[in-house]
């Protein structure tokens, strides 16, 4: 594993272009575009204010920089550095800004979610979409980029509108049977739209592309409901994580519960391997003494595998607060559909990995600090996670490995994401970033 040198970034704004060639970072009001392999600066753009959000267009030709306080969006071109585009929302304000899937339209959500303005970079047309809903995930584009689902609310009722991204034609508009629609998400095959209610009611609705209600699923009443949702890449499964610390898997044929994964504090299942990170004092291990010697070293601290039954540390949440720290807050499927990684907020230091073929737990990764972020490799079943300390943890079915980021002065890994080729991981600290290149042939990591 090779680590690159450290670069500055602000606001955790760092994105790799969809074609994988460029890395764009924002440092205060500057946008820096680098080549991913050499990390040489290719372009440098200056925005009018501190950038709040940055996004690549789908064809990797343009970058959008949004400055919410000023209500401005600036678009930069990679091919033509002197091309400029500025969208000023004026007094209506700006709350969020994103690209459309064709990379030629920008959707700006105004303040107070009054409307969504669709600006076109190809012509003078401007479209307005009224009554968008301010919720957890109100807007979603289908994977092929043809359709957009938008959650709307008017007259105290929830609606979903399906637009054709080609010309923003309203394809379908239907009411949903929810109390307070919290999010919509397309299935990867683009034919099913999942819509779920807010946490006060457990309700998952599944709509077909043409607006027909396919199925409704509700696991229980009254207690707090859905916290997180994830589709499997093959659209076979829909994983629903809820506040009762369980993940329920629905199958795409009957839309009924296939199984439920329970995050029990005591692990007795012999098929699950528990990897426990153990605090090792520096004098005891030889690894630490070599860490500053070479740039490309391999400092591997292997985790302990304790014998079963194992107790997973549980943190009891404060019951009086809203949005309690309980329940499954993060779910992610691996790219081959085989594994599912979940994080239960009551056990913030553990990440559970489930095997979808056996429908049971295959590994529990217990860290010494609460897990901040985890992400699957986009090419193979390999999971990277970070806990806010200086280490990067990797899990694959072959085993578990942790690497310390060799940066002087420490590099607190707060977030990370994979490069689309799966060959490198971008680690984000508070105001720094670092690339970690996976060397090929590393037997512990490559499956």
């Amino acid at each position: 594993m090779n680590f690159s040198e450290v670069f500055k970034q602000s606001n955790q704004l760092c994105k790799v272009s969809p074609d994988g060639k460029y890395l764009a970072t924002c440092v205060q009001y500057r946008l820096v575009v680098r080549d991913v392999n050499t990390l040489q600066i290719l372009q440098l753009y200056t925005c009018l204010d501190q950038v709040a959000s940055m996004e690549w267009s789908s064809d990797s030709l343009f970058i959008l920089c949004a400055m919410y306080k000023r209500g401005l969006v600036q678009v930069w071109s990679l091919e033509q550095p002197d091309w400029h585009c500025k969208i000023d929302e004026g007094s209506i304000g700006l709350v969020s800004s994103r690209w459309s899937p064709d990379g030629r339209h920008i959707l700006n959500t105004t303040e107070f979610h009054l409307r969504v303005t669709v600006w076109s970079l190809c012509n003078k047309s401007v479209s307005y979409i009224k009554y968008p809903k301010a919720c957890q995930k109100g807007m979603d584009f289908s994977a092929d980029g043809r359709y957009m689902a938008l959650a709307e609310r008017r007259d105290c009722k929830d609606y979903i509108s399906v637009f054709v991204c080609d010309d923003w034609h309203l394809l379908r508009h239907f009411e949903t049977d929810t109390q307070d629609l919290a999010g919509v998400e397309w299935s990867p095959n683009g034919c099913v739209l999942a819509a779920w209610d807010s946490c006060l009611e457990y309700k998952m609705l599944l709509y077909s592309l043409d607006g027909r209600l396919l199925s409704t699923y509700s696991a229980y009443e009254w207690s707090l409901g859905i916290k997180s949702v994830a589709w499997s890449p093959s659209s076979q499964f829909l994983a629903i994580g809820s506040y009762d610390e369980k993940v329920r898997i629905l199958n795409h044929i009957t839309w009924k519960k296939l199984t439920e994964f329970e995050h029990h504090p005591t692990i007795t299942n012999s098929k699950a391997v528990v990897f426990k990170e153990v605090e090792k004092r520096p004098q005891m291990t030889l690894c630490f003494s070599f860490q500053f010697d070479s740039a490309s070293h391999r400092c591997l601290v292997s985790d302990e595998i304790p014998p079963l039954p194992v107790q997973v540390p549980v943190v009891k949440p404060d019951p009086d607060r809203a949005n309690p720290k309980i329940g499954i807050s993060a779910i992610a499927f691996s790219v081959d559909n085989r594994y599912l990684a979940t994080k239960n907020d009551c056990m913030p230091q553990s990440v559970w990995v489930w095997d979808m073929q056996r429908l049971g737990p295959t590994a529990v990764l217990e860290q010494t600090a609460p897990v901040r972020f985890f992400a699957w490799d986009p090419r193979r079943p390999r999971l990277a996670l970070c806990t806010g300390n200086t280490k990067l943890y990797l899990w694959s079915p072959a085993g578990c490995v942790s690497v310390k980021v060799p940066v002087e002065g420490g590099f607190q890994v707060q977030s990370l994401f994979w490069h689309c080729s799966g060959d490198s991981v971008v680690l984000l600290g508070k105001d720094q970033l670092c690339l970690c290149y996976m060397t090929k042939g590393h037997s512990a990591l490559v499956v």
Partner: protein
Amino acid sequence: MPESSFEDINNIYVSSTMPPSRQYSQSTIPLLPFRHYIGNTEFCTENNTSECMLYISQELLALGFPSIFFDLNGLRELDVISALNSMYGLLQMHRRAVGMLAELEVEQLRVSSDLHCQQLTNSKLKDQLELSKKENLRLCERERQLEANTKALHHCLKNEKEEVQKLQNVIASRASQYNHNLKRKEREFGKLKERLNQLLTDKKDKKQGMDVLNYVGRSDGKRSQWKTGKTDSRHESDMYKALLNEFDKHQRELMIENAELKKVLQQIKQEMVGILSPKRQSGETQKEEKPKEFTDQQIASDEEEENSFKGTSEMSCEHAREQLSNSIRQQWRKLKDHMANLDNKASLVHLGQGINEEMISKEVHQEEMERLKLEIQQCKDFIHTQQQLLQQQLSTPWDEETAAVLTDCYMLEEKERLKEEWKTFEEQKKNFEMERRTFTEAAIRLGHERKMFEEDRATWLKHQFLNMTFTDQMNLKTQNTLSEYAVQEQKHISSPKTPL
């Protein structure tokens, strides 16, 4: 005689006291032999007066009375006064005794009546005790039931309390969530109001707009189209096409999966039938003859079923599916039964109750296993040594000469042999060629000679014909025919050039 008066007195006494004592004859106090006093004719007669007197005096003396006799000149004379006194004393005694008896009898009566009372009360108390014990048991039982009831109710109460607690928690969390949402909405509302105020008071209204250097072409390079009814319908059709494609793909996958599963089921069924049928056909004990027949029939019917099923295997209708799954279930049940039988047999064998022909005993089985293991080990060793030798051979470094010489050294002998054989083969081939050539030449020569011979013959015949003058016209025909025949013959001989 005063005896009769005594009798009367006695009778009176007797009659007064008799009846009660007779009733309680069970009392242990031996009654005085207080029989009806009849005249004492048996004791004293005229003959034995002196003996009687003596006896009486002795008895009286024994009882403590003074003697009734007094000695007068050596003769014992009856002292009437002392006798009377004694008699009086006896009467007194008797009276006293009777009195005591009466008292005793009264006492006894009293006691026995007390006893009777006691017994009655005792039995009554026993009954009461029984009743009260039963009552007690009943009450205990009731208490137990009530306790169980209370326990159950406690349990229910606990559950209900937990339920209530849970619901309260839920309500609390929902309430906090609602409050949170409400606060959030209020804050947003406040912001909205502020913004509205700001906009109303603000003179400058910043308009929204886009400022771009030049418009960029579409990512797919095409021109954008006008929005018409056609585009709307096109969108609809595109959407339905996408959905249909997805359905088709899905259905195809399901069909493939279905076909695979059916195949697997068929295979399983066949294998099960296979497993079950040879076992049934081997020699069995009489007990299992009947089931054997049954299963043979069953197997036959299954085979029929199978044959008929083959034709319907492509059908996916309910009937075919049910048929298949039912037959599989039947086979599986049979297999289970068979396995159960085998288990029983195995356990019997294990207990040493005789070895069945079909089964091999544990020891034999183990021996077989050992032997096989040994064989495997030997084979492994053999392969290992071979591998080693091969490695050795490949790895030893040789110089070029020896390498050149030693390449294919194993095949050298065979190569030499082969070369020799080739040589002989070549020679033979040559010989054959030569012979063939000579034969063909000979054949050609033969042909030539024949031709010559025929020509000669023809000329000779001609000469003959020409020399014959007389019989010209007569034998012309015959000569003609002869010559024709000769010519034909010549043709026949000369034409076939048979290759030799």
